[in-house]
Each structure stands twice: as structure tokens, then as C-alpha cells.
């Protein structure tokens, strides 16, 4: 018997101005899992993210968190949190003040030691006094992560966490995100348009196509048992070309 899911979406439907954006979305996520929602622009993945966050209301269906229906619960009361693609850091405050921003509203979110530990874990100690515009992309993301983690979110949402970063540091950030979810046993949902990203860092991948779930499973399941032509055509083929290019590159170097 499966463990009871921490987050459960049932038959979610949403339309904007008469156009159906999401239809019949079902999803179960277990505690501590890292799930990616993969799709092209217009697939509805950002809308789904906003629905889980509580920013966007649903037309029909329901959302359960730990078995409680939270479909009509406000964003604030859900207690989830998000790191936006462009981080939305406050430029009038320095890195440290951004990190502790939420504490001025609720001191009991995190204690002094917890924050110190978080800062050290994310290697932000030396950047605390810097203004936001003095930080590199990776540093900004770590500050944004720290700011969010201080609020102890019940679910962490990451909107395209790697897209604004330089290619060279992408892999290290991936590892760090994985490390965070493991360390804090944090249920994490990532939205991305990059198949490689989704399949290499998550426990499970949900592929969205034009508002419906194309496939939901582990990366192995997606690679080995693609459910339809869309996945075969657009996702696996891309990855194979990439793999062949990289193999080719390394063989040439060895030759």
C-alpha cells in the first residue's frame, strides 16, 4: 500500500477568457519528493504552479494537502513558498536583510542558529552585506532560496530555477537544490522547460502538453516507457541528440 501523498491534485480545470489552460490534472506527490513539471511555453505549467501556490484560483477540481482540502485556502494560509525565476529580491535591501525579511513579520519562523546554519550551508556568509546588484546570478539565487527557506515552507516551489544562470554553474546549483531537499526533507516542485534538467534532478517528472498530463513517472519510466509520440518525438529525441553530441565530443578528445 502506497504512503499517503502529502499533496494531491484532483481533476484540476482552469480556463482564461474562454480558453482552457488546464484540464483534468491529477497529481500525487509524496513527502520529501522532488518533482519536476516539464512543458513548453503554453503547456500550462506556470498556471499549475500558481494554482498550487494559491495565487490563481481553480475553476473545478480540488487540492489536498496532507489530506485536507485547501482548494479555497488563500496563498498565505497554505504556507507554501516560491523562488521566482528572476528571484524578485528587494533591491533596496542588502542580501542579509532580504534573507531575514520574513522574520520581521513572524519571529518564530526560524531561530538565530537555524539562519546561521542556512547561511553557511548556502555559502552566503561573505556576501551578506552586499547590495543585490553586486551579487552574481548564482549568489542571487542562493539568497532567494535562503529567504524562502527561512519561512519553513511546507512545499517549496521553484520557477525555472536554472534558466537565468550561466551554463557553467548550472550543474553545481542542481546538486545544491537536491542537497537542500534531502537535508530539510522538503517537498519540492520545480517548473522547467528543459527536459535534461527535469530528468536529471528530480525523483518524478510530470510532462504537460497543452493543458493535460502527458506522462507522470520517474525519469527511468519516462526514458524507457514513453507513453506517447509527443514524449518520444520532442523529449527523448532531443536528449539523444544531446547525448550523441557529448559522446562524440569526448571520443574526439580521447582520440
Amino acid at each position, binding site marked *: 500500500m502506497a504512503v499517503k501523498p502529502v499533496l494531491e491534485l484532483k481533476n484540476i480545470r482552469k480556463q482564461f477568457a474562454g480558453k482552457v489552460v488546464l484540464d483534468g490534472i491529477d497529481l500525487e506527490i509524496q513527502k520529501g519528493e522532488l518533482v519536476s513539471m516539464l512543458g513548453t511555453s503554453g503547456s500550462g505549467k506556470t498556471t499549475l504552479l500558481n494554482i498550487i501556490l494559491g495565487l490563481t*484560483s481553480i475553476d473545478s477540481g480540488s487540492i489536498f494537502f496532507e489530506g485536507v482540502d485547501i482548494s479555497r485556502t488563500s496563498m*498565505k494560509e497554505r504556507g507554501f513558498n516560491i523562488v*521566482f525565476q528572476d528571484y*524578485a529580491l528587494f533591491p533596496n535591501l542588502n542580501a542579509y536583510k532580504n534573507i531575514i525579511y*520574513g522574520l520581521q*513579520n513572524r519571529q518564530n519562523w526560524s531561530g538565530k542558529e537555524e539562519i546561521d546554519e542556512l547561511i553557511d550551508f548556502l555559502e552566503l556568509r561573505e556576501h551578506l552585506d552586499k547590495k543585490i546588484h553586486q551579487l552574481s546570478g548564482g549568489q542571487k539565487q542562493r539568497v532567494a532560496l535562503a529567504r524562502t527557506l527561512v519561512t519553513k515552507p511546507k512545499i517549496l516551489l521553484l520557477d525555472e530555477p536554472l534558466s537565468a544562470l550561466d551554463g557553467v554553474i548550472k550543474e553545481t546549483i542542481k546538486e545544491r537544490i537536491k542537497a537542500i531537499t534531502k537535508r530539510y526533507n522538503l517537498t519540492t516542485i520545480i517548473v522547467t522547460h528543459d527536459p535534461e534538467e527535469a530528468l536529471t534532478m528530480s525523483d518524478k517528472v510530470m510532462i504537460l502538453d497543452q493543458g493535460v498530463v502527458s506522462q507522470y513517472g520517474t525519469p527511468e519510466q519516462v526514458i524507457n516507457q514513453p507513453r506517447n509520440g509527443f514524449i518520444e518525438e520532442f523529449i527523448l529525441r532531443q536528449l539523444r541528440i544531446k547525448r550523441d553530441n557529448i559522446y562524440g565530443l569526448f571520443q574526439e578528445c580521447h582520440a
Partner: protein
Amino acid sequence: MHKKKPEIRLVLLGILAFFAVFLAAPLGVLLITSLKSANGIDFANYITVLQDKSVVKAIGNSVNISAVAALITTVLAFILAYTVNFTQTANSLKSLIRLGIVVPMLLPSITYGFAIIYSFGKQGLLTKLYGVELFQIYGFQGLLVGYVIYTLPFAFFLLNNSFSYIDKKYLIVSELMGDGFWRSFTNTTVRPLIGTIGGAFVVSFILSFTDFGIPASVGGNYNMIATELYQVMLGAIPDFPNGSVIAMLMLLPAFAGVCFLNYLERFNFAYDTISTTGLPDNKLRDLIFGGASVLLVIAVLAVFLVMFIAPFVKNYPYDMQFSTEFVQNALFNRAMVSVYENSIFVAVAAAVAGTIIAYCAALVNVRSAITKRERIIIDMTAMIANTVPGMVLGLAFLMFFNDSELKGTFLILIISNIVHFFTTPYLMAKNCLSKLNPAWETTGELMGDTWIKTVLRVIVPNSLATIVDMFGYFFINSMVTISAIIFLVTARTALVTSKIKELQHFASFNEIFVLSILIFVTNLVVRLGCDFANKQLSSGTNR
């Protein structure tokens, strides 16, 4: 979009209520008064007014001079903007042009007329320098000079802004394709600017058409619609029906002008990128445009020179010995000082309250989930506020609040200024707020902020530079306006500009100039203060 926030609704309602009471209702009363006659609602008042030869003549004069002035202004402003943007004139000269052109904006337009009289009159400073009278100052020519000086800065900033959006790469391309100066000029400069050039003309026209200060000072017996309206209302017994008709007649061209401006916007080019490449060399071009522009700015400044000389000599122009007698008399005169205090009070209050209202309106419009219809209502309100000439607004206030407690208070002057100057600061705030990261409110809310708290902790600190500029705009314009307040001031609430109008009665030029210098210095200090504050702000963030 989950749940409409009650505080946003409250702010929205507050703003809409404000403009319902202080814009829509007074204008409605004005319209109804103009249509109400002995036989009910008809055009009888309009017919009466339009049968009055002097009114028709005044309208004709106003249209005529405003059009000529707008044409001249547009050409001159274009030359200035071209020099600053598209020539390799020395940077120091470019700065001189940019700074010099601001000077008239810091002075009330009523001062221009007196400066013109003392510059170009029979005993004028410039007349003395040239040895001959350059032109007949009272009437058409004097008004024309006044209007051109008055509208030149507005037209220049409009064009200057558009110039900076032209991709200079195209100048290089045009040069490489072998275009001559004229072909290159028309294709790469005039064509992309045609919308703004039209806009500069329309803006100059409306400004001249609705101005009261210049015809009040240098109009002579040349009737203009603004002075006609003033006489009908204050000449003897206030004539509300006819006054409202003339006000409506003043409103119509202004309204048509604003509509036309919106139409012109579609002619504006949008380049994808703006690259800042160098300009092709052309010494002749630089010499001609640079020389013309510098001369122009010096000419404008020269007109105001007399203002800074006349009050400091014993008896201008006969006895040119230095004397501070007039200045001392004016500055140590309780009545003068108290009028100056009134002006400062009104300007500061209008600037503080106006900035808050305009900022809130922009905030609600661009950073909250209000309906599209509500968004359009706010934008329309801003456009209407922009359309209504100051005198028309003032008259509408006079009619609507005639029997209320507001009559004769400072509050009505402050509100009149807020409504009259609302649009520009509102657009400044809108522009700035729409550029800020849209996820801040959500982030703040997730961090436990209320909406208002995020606004105060994050949005406001990140738009401080704009807020400072909005404050400066409201302050300076409230200090220099006469048209928006002339119908609303009383003895107890007299302001510097209305005092200048009163002093004109005695032709007390020295006092007029001393008061003008006071306004000028005050505005200069505020303007420099704003610039300094913004410099501090931006150096604080190292940008």
C-alpha cells in the same frame, strides 16, 4: 487574483471618489450652467456669447497666435533637440542648452510678459543694447514672443525624449548607402519623429491657447480668450452663464488637441534596440545647429536678464546705480512675506498630497488585480485632468464650491493644483512601477507582509527617485501657476502669482520682479534639491 484585497479596493474607491467630487462634478456643473437658460436646456447662452463680436474676435486671436507660436516653437525646439542629440557640438554647450531651456519653467508665465516689456519696450534693456525698438510688444508680437518662450521647454523635452529613442545606427547606414544630408535627415530623423513633431506642435498650441499669464501681462488691448474669460468673471458682476460658455469654448480645442495627440502616437517609430554608436562627422552641420541653438538659448535667457537687474538699481532705466532698496522693501514687507508663505504652503501641501494620490492611483492601476474597466477609468480620469485648462478647472471649482465651506480656503487651491497637475506625475509613477519586478507583492505576502506593508517596505523604497521627481513636479508647477488659481484666491489666501497680477495694477515692476526672483530661487532650490536627493539615492545603490 485569488481574492480582491480590501485595502486595494479602499484606495481605488478613495481615488475615484476624489476625482468624482473634484473633477467630474465641477465639470458637470460647468457644462449644465453653460446650457441652462431661461427656456430650460438649450444653446441660448452659446448663441449669445458667439454673437458678441469681441468674444469671437478673442477666440480668433487666440487660435491664430497659438498656431503661429506653436509652429515657431516646434521648429526651434527641433533645432535644439537635434543639436543636443545628433550633432557633435561640445558637451559643455549641450549642457548649457539643456539647463538654459529649463529656466523659463521655473518662472510663472505672467512674469514673461513683464520681462518682455522691460526687455523689448521703448526703454527696454535689449532695446537699449540694439539701439532700436525690435518690434511692437503689446499685442500680437509680444504675445508671440511670450508664448514661444513659454512653450519651448515643453516642446524641447518632448522631442529630446523621442530623439533618444532613435537608433543612431541608421544614421551610419544611411551615410554608408551614400545618402546626402537632406535624404539622410528626412529618412533617419524627421520620419521617425513625425509623431512627436506633431505632438510638440499640439502641446505648444494647447499651452498657448489656455495660458492666462502672458496675455494678462503683455496682451495690451489685444483680446484673447483667457483674458476675455477673466473679464467676464471678474470684470464687474460675475457672469456665470457666459463665463461657463467661454470656458467650454476654451475646453473644446484643448480636448480636440489631446485626442489628436493620442492619434499621433501611432506614428511613433519603435526601434527594437537603441544602440549608441558614434555619429558621422559633419563639421558644417555641427557649426550651424550648434551656433543656432546656443544663440537661441542665450536669447531666451537675455529676455529674463532684466528681471535680475531692474530691482537692483535705483531707478531703472534712468539711474542705474546699484541699490537693494526695492529688494529690502519687498522682503521686509509683512504682506509680501506672508503671500510668499502662502505660496510655499500651498505648493508643499499640493506636492505631498498630490504625490500620494498620483502614486496610489498608479499603484492600484499597474500593481493590483483590478478589473480592466477600473483600469480604464483611472487612465481616462488622468487624461481628462490633463485636458482641462487651469482656468476652466478653476471656474468649475468656483461654481461647484461657491456655497460650500471650501470657498476661499487654502484647501481648494491645493486640490485645484493636485487635479490640474495630476497627469504627469501619475504617468511617471505608472512608468516606474510597471518596471519593478511583478513578483514582489507575492513574495512579500509569502513572507507574511500585508499588501500595504510590502508597498511601504519594498515598492516605495524602490521607486523613491520617481517619488522625489513627482514631488518636484507638483511643487514647481504649483508655485508658478496662475491660471488654475486665479478664480479661487481670496485676500486671505493670496499667492505670489495672484499678487503679481495685483501688482500689475500699479505697474509695480520692481516688486513683480522681486517676487518672480523669489519664485525662481525657490524653484531652483527645490529642483536642485530633488536632483541632489536622487543622486544620493542612486549613489547609495551604486547604479
